[in-house]
């Protein structure tokens, strides 16, 4: 198996140091994290982490098994990508002098982004979507003059009944 994109969803104890344990594990075992996003769940004692990584079958299995050994990690699930909704949030600030503003606004319309801040010289927008859409938006804006880019990393949720539960036995 070639290197493939891996989307992992984790339920972890919402305690200090958990993120260090996870990122430390990736670092010392030589696995790369492409993106990582984390937030509290409906249960304040549990956080959900989405990790995007790349690897072959060996790396995939090792990542899963090693993560499962961490005491604070409750559930690790390799998300089936056809049954998963992936989203990322992008905040981007561009130069938007009167001369270029309309070009920026065209992109906002086409990409269905949202303008969230406007000054005489700058415009800030938010856009959610899959990585490729965000990449395309940035590519379009680049010649117009990007000042700042801020991305959250991928977050993922299964479609329909495809859910992550605590105490999940696989």
């Amino acid at each position, binding site marked *: 198996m070639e290197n493939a994109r891996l989307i992992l969803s984790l339920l972890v104890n919402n305690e200090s*140091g958990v993120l260090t344990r996870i990122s430390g594990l990736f670092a010392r075992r030589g696995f790369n994290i492409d993106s990582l996003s984390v937030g509290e769940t409906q249960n304040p004692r549990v956080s959900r982490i989405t990790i995007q990584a790349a690897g072959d079958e060996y790396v995939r299995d090792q990542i899963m*098994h090693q993560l499962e050994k*961490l*005491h*604070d990690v409750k559930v690790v699930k390799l998300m089936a990508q056809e049954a998963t909704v992936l989203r990322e949030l992008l905040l981007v600030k561009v130069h938007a002098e009167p001369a270029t503003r309309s070009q920026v606004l065209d992109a906002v319309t086409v990409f269905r982004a949202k303008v969230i801040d406007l000054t005489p010289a700058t415009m800030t927008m938010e856009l959610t979507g899959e990585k490729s859409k965000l990449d395309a938006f940035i590519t379009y804006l680049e010649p117009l003059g990007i000042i700042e880019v801020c991305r959250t990393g991928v977050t993922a949720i299964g479609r329909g009944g495809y859910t992550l539960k605590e105490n999940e036995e696989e």
Partner: protein
Amino acid sequence: MKLSGAQILMEIFREQQVDTVFGYPGGAVLNIYDELYKASDWLRHVITCHEQGASHAADGYARATGKTGVVLATSGPGATNLVTGIATAYLDSTPMVAITGNVACPLIGRDSFQEVDITGVTMPITKHNYMVKDVTRLADTLREAFLIAASDRPGPVLVDIPKDVQTAQCEFIPAAREIAAKRKPLNEEDVKRAAELISSAKRPFLYIGGGVVAAGAGKELLTLAQTIGAPIGASMMGLSAVPHSHPLFLGMTGMHGRYAASKALDRSDLIIAVGTRFSDRATGNKQEFSKDHKVLHIDIDPAEISKNIPAYVALVADVKQALAALNALGLAHSDPEWLTEVQALKAAPDNHLTMDANVLNPQLVLQAVNKRLPPDSPVATDVGQHQMWVAQYYSFEKPRTLITSGGLGTMGFGMGAAMGACIGTGLKKTLLVTSDGSFHMNMNELATAVANQLPLIVLVLNNSVLGMVRQWQTMFFGKRYSNTTLNRPTDFCLLAQAFGAKGLRLETLDKLDSVLDKAFATQGPVVVDVRINRDEMVLPMIPPNGSIRDMILRG
């Protein structure tokens, strides 16, 4: 009842049936030591010379007994001195609970005196660790720490307790000791596939590791070996799991493995790997290792399956449970010629290498010691040539009698580990085989052995060089002996006497029996300075990343 954090720690020790704590006092654990003072009628505290010695002692205690070893140290340097001991325990999967004090919570994060982020430091070398900032969480955290250390694949757990948590009070509710976490039931399909694989093998080979010792599965393993007609080879950590005198046992495999063991492994069509993780020292070149045979891997840790060597079939389970399940099925016997071939390998001259019998050599010394020491006595080692000679020439007949640092290869492990094993086994006569290089690292602990009058024989195989590194320099670095010729004038006899131990010197073969007799007749600690040839090699040797075809049998 309302108890302080330090008192809660004692109550948990009692609950967990801890009888011995190895440690060293200091500012951030004064309150704990005050409680140890009051608990001295039921809880033994052994003060070592250095926290590292205490950590190895707790490790040695655990290896010899199977119980969880406990070590206690103060904050800052006390805690960092545990690091090598914790890492040693982690790499060899020894159950250990390390308790450290830390500065009071309001001082944390301010680079206070003797403050160190020990949970951060030990994160990659513990199964799990905690800093307890709330005394009401202390009891359950400690219980969980003991549970994690001993369950599934054992390992070290560290609990860091800030000073103000030791003095803060809360209600303590006693609880029964929880024994190891529940294990997943065996997958019946996997057991069936494993049984089919074993039955279809013509030349099966049982390759066993430390997991067999940890699970206490020697009996089940021998039953399987006899049922299916398979020889047994062990990684270093697997030594002592089954009696070495058993006709099916071939000895250690790997870099310095025995000829017959390595050869039989290579000739086999199925490797049944039990409780082992295929370390590079055990396999050599991994492609060559996995050529021409299938691997059935039985281990409790799913992350070990196919991590180093791809498994054809795997059983993720407690080794004892898995072997019992296999033994309950009707398994076919191997080809009749296989055991004949194995016995021929066992009888081959290459399987019986001897050192020059005209001079005092490690082989003769270890064989002479082997004859004198009771089979249930712990034998600890340090790391280097002497360690390999023990692995090759000492016949371990009872499980948990070999106390050695495998995965981390920690020079300086021996003194502390031997003391811990000695104390853990109720002061059995204990042997430490070490060398001038390793002994120089942590010989300070001789003072601890003397203070506790431990029946410890320290055999220093003294060749004035760092023998194992020198051997590599001889073989692979054109005899450029960079920093391995020590020639230190240390007089180990005088040194032993200075510590209050007995010191003996063994320089010639004709004195072998008389000196060893004297050593064995000694009550307390005795150091025997054994002078051996600096060019003695550990053979056979398969060079790093090599295979059986690269085996060097003679120097």
